[in-house]
């Protein structure tokens, strides 16, 4: 039960205990309180230890879309790596130093091509490749996105500024079960001379969910 009173205050590494007069400041909302209560019960019943919970939090917080971007850029630069990423994502990620923990749901990578555009949603909750990309954006968890992404994917993408041509097949992937999806976006034209690091800078979180495409930098588009 100790965690109820210590470091986990819902504000990341910001510790209220550090500020005089704020030690007893309770601003927790309903869901934060519920999460704390569940956490305390899991510990009390011996399902997991506070350290294990903190390790998992740290692991997710340590990942961000920059990690996915690195993987995407490497796949663009190296066709053999791309083939491995599509056929055996876990082996491909391990090559770049990302070892997914056993408890992580399996990852599948789907490739956008000139004929196919993939879009990822979880209609049941908020399944997302957290082990690679970290936490999902808030809109990904909204009822609006979760319902509209399946019924009107093209309309949703237009709101993100992407108009997918009618001749391109849109594939919505609903991650309802034991797999998580990463979209491998198309490499934009005009990026031929760019280094892998420069390419990674272009790859956005949204393009790896599929609501947008990766755009070449202004300088490359101008020509």
């Amino acid at each position, binding site marked *: 039960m100790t965690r109820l009173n210590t470091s986990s205050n819902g504000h990341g590494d910001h510790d209220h205990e550090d500020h005089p007069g704020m030690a007893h400041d309770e601003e927790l909302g309903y869901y934060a309180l519920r999460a704390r209560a569940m956490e305390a019960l899991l510990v009390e019943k011996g399902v997991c230890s506070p350290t294990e919970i903190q390790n998992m939090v740290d692991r997710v917080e340590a990942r961000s879309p920059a990690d996915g971007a690195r993987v995407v850029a490497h796949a663009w630069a190296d066709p053999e790596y791309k083939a491995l990423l599509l056929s055996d994502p876990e082996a491909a990620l391990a090559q770049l130093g990302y070892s997914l923990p056993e408890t992580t749901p399996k990852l599948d990578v789907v490739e956008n091509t000139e004929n196919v555009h993939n879009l990822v949603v979880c209609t049941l909750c908020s399944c997302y490749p957290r082990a690679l990309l970290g936490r999902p954006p808030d809109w990904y968890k909204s009822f609006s996105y979760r319902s509209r992404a*399946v019924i009107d994917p093209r309309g949703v993408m237009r709101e993100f500024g992407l108009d997918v041509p009618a001749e391109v*097949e849109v*594939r*919505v992937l609903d991650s*309802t079960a*034991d*797999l998580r999806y990463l979209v491998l976006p198309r490499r934009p034209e005009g990026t031929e001379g760019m280094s892998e690091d420069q390419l990674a800078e272009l790859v956005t979180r949204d393009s790896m969910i599929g609501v947008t495409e990766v755009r070449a930098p202004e300088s490359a588009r101008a020509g």
Partner: protein
Amino acid sequence: MTQYSGQPDDSTVKYQPGDTVAVRVDNPGGHFRTPRYIQGQTGRVHKLCGIFPNPESLAYGGDGQPAQPLYRVEFSQSQVWSEYAGPSSDKIYVDIYQHWLEPATAVA
């Protein structure tokens, strides 16, 4: 332990990529991972994703056995949504556990 209809007997893989399957309509009560909008729809097995412990058992402290083959099933968007606005070639893929699927004949 919650009983539900369609309780799986074993873990044998029954479907192959390309097979036409129908998603059962069911309301087992409690936790299940087959969205309502896809129940009753007919699709095509795209691939076998693996064999996983049954989440309907895991959710209630069960051992998830018998584990269930999980398939990525492809559906035509315009077939799933009668007022779908996009081209008829658009698809939706849903991962579905075997005990939610039944053999079906291809739709015209």
